[in-house]
């Protein structure tokens, strides 16, 4: 028996590996250039007191990180971010799920609904911000006029520190719900029709039982994907804050990302902003990881 020459075998495997590298090379290069290297720079900056425009700067070790712990605004920003995420994500995911379930059964209006609910996701927020600012005006905004008509007291949506953050989160949900709906629709389309028929015969009418026992579990992977992507997006909310409240009133809508922006580009404290950025990235990564691990246990494929 002649063993095939290992060099020959390796040659063909090498050829494939080479092609793989060649094809991935631009992406690898750009990944290094646009993500990895800048992140390393940011990481390095987080140990300095560099300030934009300054000619002198020094290493401060873990100083910036220590400073975060003593900075109530930074800690507050972490809290605001969590509140934002905890309002916007469940709201958009649950609403998206409900919409998808309702839209899925529509035949004629399906396309129209898809378009309508996806509309906010496509709209330039800076344009929509002007609209929201007016609609939510504490005094002359139509929403408050309707609330007054309903006998509900006036709400200073964007200028009351108690309501500003939830309001922004709700607007975030308004933007996100199209995406979640469309993703859930895609997930629902993947559930075989046979399973629904079988469920009908097994005594599960179209209502709650079918949803709980069949639809939701089968949607498991989609739910995970939607929750993770929505969470990442919610963490990164920036436009609405910059355009509507600029962190106010009274700092109540200062999220972590907005705080980073303030430190870096309003206060020019680059080193500190870098430390906050690293913290921010770590938080997103941790959050996504926890969700994936937690959800993985409950997904059945």
């Amino acid at each position, binding site marked *: 028996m002649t063993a095939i020459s290992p060099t020959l075998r390796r040659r063909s495997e090498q050829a494939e590996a080479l092609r793989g590298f060649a094809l991935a090379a631009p992406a690898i290069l750009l990944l290094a250039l646009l993500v990895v290297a800048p992140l390393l720079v940011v990481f390095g900056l987080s140990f300095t007191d560099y300030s934009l425009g300054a000619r002198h700067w020094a290493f401060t070790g873990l100083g910036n990180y220590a400073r975060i712990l003593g900075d109530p605004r930074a800690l507050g920003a972490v809290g605001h971010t969590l509140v934002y995420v905890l309002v916007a994500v469940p709201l958009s995911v649950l609403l998206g799920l409900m919409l998808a379930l309702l839209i899925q059964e529509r035949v004629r209006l399906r396309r129209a609904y898809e378009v309508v609910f996806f509309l906010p996701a496509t709209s*330039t927020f*800076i344009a929509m911000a002007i609209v929201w600012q007016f609609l939510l005006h504490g005094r002359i905004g139509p929403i408050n006029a309707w609330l007054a008509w309903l006998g509900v007291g006036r709400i200073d949506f964007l200028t009351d520190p108690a309501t500003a953050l939830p309001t922004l989160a709700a607007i975030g949900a308004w933007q996100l719900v199209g995406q979640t709906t469309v993703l859930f629709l895609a997930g629902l389309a993947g559930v075989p029709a046979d399973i629904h028929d079988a469920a009908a015969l097994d005594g599960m009418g179209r209502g709650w039982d079918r949803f709980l026992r069949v639809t939701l579990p089968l949607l498991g992977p989609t739910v995970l994907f939607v929750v993770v992507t929505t969470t990442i997006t919610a963490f990164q909310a920036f436009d609405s804050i910059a355009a509507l409240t600029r962190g106010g009133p009274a700092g109540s809508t200062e999220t972590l990302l907005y705080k980073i922006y303030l430190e870096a580009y309003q206060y020019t404290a680059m080193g500190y902003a870098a430390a906050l950025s690293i913290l921010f990235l770590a938080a997103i990564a941790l959050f996504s990881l926890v969700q994936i691990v937690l959800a993985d246990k409950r997904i059945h494929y």
Partner: protein
Amino acid sequence: MAPANPLPRLTRSIGANAVLLGLAGLVLLPYAWMALTAMRAPSEIFSDPFGLPHDPGILVDNIRRAFAAVPMARFLLNGLVVTAGLLMLQLAVAVPCAYALAKLRFAGKSALFALIVAALCVPIQVPMLPIYIVLASLKALDSYFALIFPFVLSPFAIFLLRQQFRAFPDEIIQAARLDGFSEVEIMLRLVVPSARPAIAAFAVFSITAHWNDLYWPLIVVSSETMATPPLGLMFFRDGDLGTDYGPLMAGAILIVAPVMLVFLLAQRQFIRGLTMTGLR
């Protein structure tokens, strides 16, 4: 003759449509105000926000003013160049990488994929400063290059397309190899055409994101001629002087509409793309 009882089905459908229409109304509320305001004269705007405009013809005037106040056409053109150019380049980078990740064996492949997934979580605000400084030192700020280059690598595109390409039958690829296709030809002539819906889905995401992005253009653009639509809208929006809402909303409509149009055109493929990639 058909004795089926259609009543429950009908009530269900009416109920569901009622809920959907109600929510649709809520979602559309801002657009309604936008459209109505674009048809108003300045003095009408705040008195009766959802009343019918007195003279919808003002819309034309407002649009004219929008174009007169700022180089609106230029902004729209910039938006087109940036989003279209970016989409092409993103695909040019992502397609080969996704194909290699999906169908070829090479060392470090899983590490690369892990990095790509991790990169999905990085918001542009974080690596922005170093990229800005490099661009500036290359004297490349305030150019299409500066607007496009930092986003040419789209981890999302790579992720999405990899999922899609993996579903492409290996046997067809093998058949093509027997037929004498080169790897690049297999990718471009076989795999990519089959991934059209996924590409459409990505296109919608990419165009939406970059047409609407304000953050990065705000930093790299310093001349009006390079401004993208949202940046243009910002120039247009009267910061400290109060607001001239009619033309502003007319401009806003002009800026929001193209992406909506893209979505409308790509909708079927978009939804199919999401369904096919499975996202599981």
